[in-house]
Every structure is written in C-alpha cells, then in structure tokens.
C-alpha cells in the first residue's frame, strides 16, 4: 500500500491514463491538475483551466487518450493532447443544472454525463459537423443522477440516482454503432429503454458498478449494499457508515469504501446467492500500546465519561471519507491494484496480493 497526500483540500474526482503514469484530478476547484509520476515523486505537469464551476467528474479514455471533464457550470469538455498541451472542446449538454459524473463508454466512441437536471446526456461525435452531439435519457428519472457505469457491450448504462433507485438504461446510438446482441438484461434495446429498475433501497445511490462480464451489477446505497446477478437479487445491510463507491475486483468480489475511511471487501457466493462481508482492507499502524496511568484514566473519565484508552485519531490510511475507487491493473476480472482518493486530499494505491497475504482470513474469490 502506498499513500500519497496531494493536497489539503478534498480530491473531487480522479482518472488515470492508460499506462498509469499520469493521474488527472480536481483539487475541489475549477481546475484539473495532471500529475506525472517521476521516480517516487508526483510532479504537476499540466493544469487544465476551462471550467467555471467545480469539476465534478473526470474520465480518461485509455486508447484514444482523451480526457472528458464535467462540472457544476453545466458544461463538459473533451480534452485532446496536441503536442505538449491539452486542448479543450466544448460539449453542449443542454442541461440546466450541474453535471455530476461522466464516463467514457468501453469503445470510447461516446460518453455519458449524469446531472442534477434529472437526466443523462449521452454524447457522441458527429463527423459531418465535427461536433459532439448529445441525446437525453429522461424518463423515468426523478432526481439527480449520482453515478454511472457502462456495460462492456458499450450499449447498456447503469445509473444510480437520488430518487433511491439504480436503473440500467440502453444508450444505443444508431449513428455510431450496430445493434447489440441480446444480453442477460434483455434483447430489445432502443435508446432510453429501462432494462432494469431496482426496488427496496431507501437511500441515495452513491456508486454503481457492472462486473467484468456485465451480468452482475452492484450499487452502494446510503443504507445497504444491493447486488443483482440474474436472476437473484440480494443485499447486505451494512453495520458501518454509508459506502460511497464500489467496484468489482473479480467476478465474485467487490471492494467498496465510504465514510468509514477504509475499503471493505465483500464476497458473493453464487451457490447461496448471498453477499457476505469479506474483511476490512486496511492495515492500521500498530501504535505502541502504552499503559494508562491513573491520572490519564481519571482525565478520560472526566472528559469523555469512559475509561477507554482509544484516542480520537483515525487509524486507517485515509483520514477522511473515501469518495472514489478506480482499478489500476488487471481490469474488473482480476484486479491486482486499485486506487482510492478521498476528502483528505490523499491517494492510496492498494495491492491486492499484499492485502491477501497480510490478512490471513481474507479470501478473494
């Protein structure tokens, strides 16, 4: 595990380039900073300044090397590297509220933006006009879209929203692709069709993720962690603070993190169709347990009405909520490394192999 503290402000969002040597992130303001790893230092090489509002989502397309950013100024920009500088292209999203999240599709010919105006903008490049055009998915979304994830077939899009539902839409654009083959979620997929709508959660859906095959989807809601694998749907009620982001690391295991400041592993057993808690993925520093003097005990009793010697300092690697998880190596099928960024302005890189050996009863199926 390595932890690097970039700044004091929260990192709103981040994205890695293809070979994982550069990271683009927003330090909670209108800019996007790109850092490059040189040796063991991270050096800021570019600052992208075009947005007029906080940048809420960044995604870096690995193959075509384009960055798309979206912000509270209701705009999205597609950045291409020309020579040594990144040049922005405005994308008109036709939304009247802030954009919240953005994701490139797997083939990188379109991207989706979730926004506070209760719709998803699916944007694709129109060759004739040399311009990015967008189509809206409006029904039946009733509130802000908080998170998005694409299915590997480049057509289906999972969206988590503040109206307490996670839905899977079809984002099939006939101008840029052919008709998709039938999937586990359905066979007729006209644009905007709802293939699946969840029931049963009572909190905002903060994070959503498709598995590598696309047959399973998991989403992190404020109260529970539901999981759908055709045809069974199961959920796990959490005993911890709400989870904000979730990702699959193999077909059966998920890593999620949130306000508790450490990532947690969940394992899905397909025989029992049940999701279970796998373990806490944090190796806290073993602070020296010094004995408590009588004076300290009395002081604790006076101040905090308890004789515990626990300090009010967090023992986890991140010192504040984790807001985003991204896979670094191995894809969603066999992830070897993943990265978390959070409100403490730091970025931690977690190595799955070392975690597995460090925690003896941790099993990543």
């Amino acid at each position, binding site marked *: 595990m390595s932890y690097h503290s970039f700044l004091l402000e929260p990192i709103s969002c981040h994205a890695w380039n293809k070979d994982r040597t550069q990271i683009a992130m927003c330090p909670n303001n209108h800019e996007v900073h790109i850092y490059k790893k040189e040796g063991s230092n991270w050096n800021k090489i570019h600052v992208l300044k075009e947005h007029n509002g906080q940048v809420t989502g960044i995604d870096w397309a690995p193959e075509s090397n384009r960055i798309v950013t979206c912000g509270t100024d209701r705009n999205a920009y597609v950045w291409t590297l020309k020579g040594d500088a990144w040049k922005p292209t405005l994308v008109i999203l036709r939304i009247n509220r802030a954009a919240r999240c953005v994701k490139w599709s797997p083939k990188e010919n379109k991207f989706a933006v979730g926004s506070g105006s209760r719709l998803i903008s699916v944007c694709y490049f129109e060759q004739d006009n040399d311009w990015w055009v967008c189509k809206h998915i409006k029904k039946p979304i009733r509130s802000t879209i908080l998170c998005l994830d694409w299915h590997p077939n480049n057509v289906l899009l999972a969206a988590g929203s503040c*109206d307490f539902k996670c839905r899977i839409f079809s984002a099939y654009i006939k101008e840029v692709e052919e008709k998709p083959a039938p999937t586990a979620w359905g066979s007729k997929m006209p644009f905007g069709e709802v293939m699946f709508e969840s029931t049963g959660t009572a*909190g905002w859906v903060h994070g959503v993720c498709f598995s590598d095959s696309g047959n399973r989807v998991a989403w992190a809601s*404020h109260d529970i962690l539901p999981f759908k694998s055709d045809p069974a749907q199961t959920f796990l009620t*959490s*005993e911890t603070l709400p989870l904000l982001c979730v990702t699959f690391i193999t077909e059966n295991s998920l890593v999620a993190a949130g306000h508790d400041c450490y990532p947690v592993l969940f394992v899905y057993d397909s025989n029992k169709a049940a999701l279970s808690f796998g373990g806490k993925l944090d190796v806290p520093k073993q602070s020296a347990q010094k004995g408590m003097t009588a004076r300290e005990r009395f002081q604790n009793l006076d101040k905090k009405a308890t004789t515990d010697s626990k300090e009010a300092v967090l023992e986890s690697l991140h010192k504040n909520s984790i807001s985003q998880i991204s896979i670094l190596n191995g894809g969603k099928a066999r992830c070897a490394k993943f990265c978390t960024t959070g409100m403490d302005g730091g970025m931690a890189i977690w190595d799955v192999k070392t975690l597995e050996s460090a925690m003896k009863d941790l099993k990543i199926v």
Partner: protein
Amino acid sequence: MAKNTLSSRFRGVDIDEYDENKFVDEQDEAAEQQGPDACEVDHLIRQGDTMTAFHIALRNPPINSKNPAVKERAQAVVLRVLTAFKSSDIEPAVKSLDRNGVDLLMKYIYRGFEKPSDNSSAILLQWHEKAFAVGGLGSIVRVLTARKSV
C-alpha cells in the same frame, strides 16, 4: 430598496405544487398494519412477562400507514414495554431480535427521543446503547434514511 420587496406575502401561489416534475412519493397503504395490540401487551406486562410483551409490541409496525393516530398509539405501546424492562434484561432482549427487528427497535427509540417525558430519555438511552452494539452505525443510518417511518 422599494417597500414591496421586503414582504413576500404577495406570493399567494405555491408554484412548486404546479411543477409537472414534482416528485410524488409512491406510498402503498397497508390496511392491516394497525400497530401492536395494546391490551395484550398490557396484560403481559402486568404478568411480568416482559420478553413476550416486547416481541408482540414489535410486531405489526404501522410503517405504511398515513394515519398519525395509529403511529402515536403504536409508539405509546412500545414505550410502555421498554420502560417495563429491568436494566439487566435489556441486553438479552435485544440479542433475541433479528436484523430487521433491531432496525425497527432503533426506529422506535429515535421516535421516542423526539418527545421526551419524565424518565423516558434515560431508559431509551440504555436501550439505544444495547441496540447500537448489535446493529452498529448502519442501523442508525437506516433510521435516518428510511422513507417509511414508524
């Protein structure tokens, strides 16, 4: 500034009511959820069988009901049972509940906090401590985010 910008009483129309995109909650009425049976619970408390009274009080929660009287009645019954318990019996009672039961108990506890009376807060705090030990922070979050409250 002109005088008419100070008062907003000229706003006679609530424009949010006419917004066609207004979020209307889907509520399903459940007529059979009338709350726990008060007489039965009273009878059991008088007999001293607080554990059974506890389980009965937590049955039939008026979650889907829009009738505030039903909810008040249910809350009163549950509060009676919770106060009838001795401090040492609280922990086994909480342990005998399943996951949903603990969540429901938490909902009643927080509802009880809203209207404190005499000694109720102290007793509710004891129950809260034991329920928290079993349910964790998740159960409190579920109380806060629950759309169908008790």
